[in-house]
């Protein structure tokens, strides 16, 4: 139990550390990365249900980003695995329900269901990977700033930022509570009964509310006006335009032209 929490805690912190690196990709204006990611995700999910070949070239983008931003691949893959159960749970019904043979590999017939399941897994890796890459190359505060510049309401972005700031504090607080609880219950093996759980949650909530009031007073006394201030300076310039136009154009190209078909049939030609 607590290992799971510790790991989640560590993961957020680790993504934050990754985002603080100083590579060409990290120095790009966050808006360029946000918009490029959006184009990427929409292109990936707009493919037909049985598309496999067309999706494969899209792995180019994560590869380039991981390379340029010097990100640890194993860490990202582990995060992908951690969240995959839901998609697998829904997708695994495809092979079961859709049994018509679609591709014949010698004596083995592959049903449409397996093809669409594979397609689903590819989409999942690409879209979720894209989100992780965005945060690992940008950082949360900077994304909040980009969202505001792109028109998100200030109230929303400010409290998004506050949520993130106090996430660490509160998670640390809940870890302390759970440790205290487990030290006081010898035979429970880390299990928390409903009544104890409620009291812990209630106390955590009361502490949270008090903390919010202290935070607000402290912020006011430091002249907080509701504006987000980020140390690193960004501007949407030549590089950003190139990044967005280059990758955005590539994605659209891969999505719309026969280049995919060519590549796809090549891939299928090898496997088939």
């Amino acid at each position, binding site marked *: 139990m607590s290992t799971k929490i510790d790991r989640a805690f560590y993961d957020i912190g680790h993504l934050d550390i990754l985002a603080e690196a100083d590579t060409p990709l990290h120095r790009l204006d966050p808006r360029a990365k946000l918009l490029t990611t959006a184009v990427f995700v929409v292109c990936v999910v707009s493919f*037909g249900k049985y598309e496999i070949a067309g999706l494969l070239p899209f792995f180019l983008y994560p590869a380039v980003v991981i390379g340029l931003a010097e990100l640890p691949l194993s860490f990202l893959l582990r995060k992908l695995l951690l969240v995959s159960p839901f998609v697998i749970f829904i997708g695994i019904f495809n092979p079961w329900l859709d049994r018509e043979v679609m591709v014949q590999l010698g004596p083995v017939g592959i049903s449409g269901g397996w093809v669409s399941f594979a397609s689903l897994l590819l989409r999942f890796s690409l879209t979720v990977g894209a989100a992780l890459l965005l945060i690992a190359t940008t950082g949360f505060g900077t994304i909040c700033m980009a969202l505001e510049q792109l028109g998100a*309401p200030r109230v929303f972005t400010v409290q998004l930022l506050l949520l993130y700031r106090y996430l660490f504090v509160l998670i640390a607080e809940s870890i302390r509570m759970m440790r205290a609880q487990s030290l006081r219950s010898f035979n429970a093996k880390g299990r928390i009964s409903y009544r104890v759980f409620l009291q812990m949650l209630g106390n955590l909530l009361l502490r949270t509310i008090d903390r919010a009031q202290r935070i607000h007073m402290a912020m006011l006394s430091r002249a907080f006006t509701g504006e987000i201030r980020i140390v690193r300076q960004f501007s949407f310039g030549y590089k950003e335009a190139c990044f967005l136009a280059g990758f955005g154009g590539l994605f659209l190209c891969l999505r719309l032209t026969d280049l995919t078909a060519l590549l796809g049939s090549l891939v299928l030609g090898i496997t088939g």
Partner: protein
Amino acid sequence: MHMADALLSPAVGGTMWAAAAAATVYCSAKVRQSLDDRKVPLMGVLAAFVFAAQMINFTIPGTGSSGHLGGGLMLAILLGPPAAFLAIASVLTVQALFFADGGLLALGCNIINLGIFPCFIAYPLIYKRIVGSHPTRARLLTGSLIAAIVGLQMGAFAVVTETTLSGVSSLPFSSFVVLMQPIHLAIGIVEGLVTAGVISFIWQARPEILEKAATDQPIGILPIGKILVIMAALTVLIGGLLSWYASEHPDGLEWSMFKVSGQEELETREGLHKDLAGVQEQTALMPDYGFKKSAAGDSGRLGTSVAGLVGGLLVLLLGVVIGLVLKKRGAGGHDHSHPHDHDHSHPNHHH
């Protein structure tokens, strides 16, 4: 449960994004209008609390599944609907980015599924009605239980509808419903019990916190409200169009091409790429293999239009509810001549 990018079509994801963005803009304007700037840090910190609480929640014995506390109802009770909606939206944003829960396109769906239903339906129409202004332990328990269950059932149903309309999963609509609703009944019961427990704990320890939240100020009619109504109407329109479009084409083009056999691979892909508008029809079809296997276009059309109808109805319902909430707010606003007299607020009894 979180919707995932991989299960979505761009049309469905985009529509839900538009709806979520409109709701966020609307709620932000509402919160700003209430001029209670103390609420902004409280919102952020309580959203962080939901995170911390969700982490403890995984350890409750007896559930067996990994269903976690949405926290939506609890936030609605503590903050009031618009502020709670923003807090939930930001929790989901952080989850999408850091925990890779769902993904960026699915964020719109998740915000609607887990934010709108608890904040604008379960809390004002169920919880508030049952608990009223003089809570008792029994009322708190029934109110929280029913509100949490209803909110989660609607959210789960929305997940099913969005998945079915997107057509990436082969799971037939009916079996998916049968699969999802009971799971979420269990999750809803857990959530209702936990919400009731924590709220009654707070109610005993610090009743003023709840009283303050319960007497959330009605605010005069905002122009932004009209924008939301327009956006809701647009959503209904797009959703309706989408489902009609889907039902106009009873059988998947690609499917029939596959059946022809031979060079299906290339032909299909050409068909896919040549016609950009075809993207919707390809991906929005109800992918029920059973219907298609029974060949006759009729049953296929039936299946598709059922999904379309349900989706359309759902969005329509959403629009109606938002309209109702706005209307209620508007009516409530008349008692208060000044929009920001919340400093000496009095409870507003006619809810």
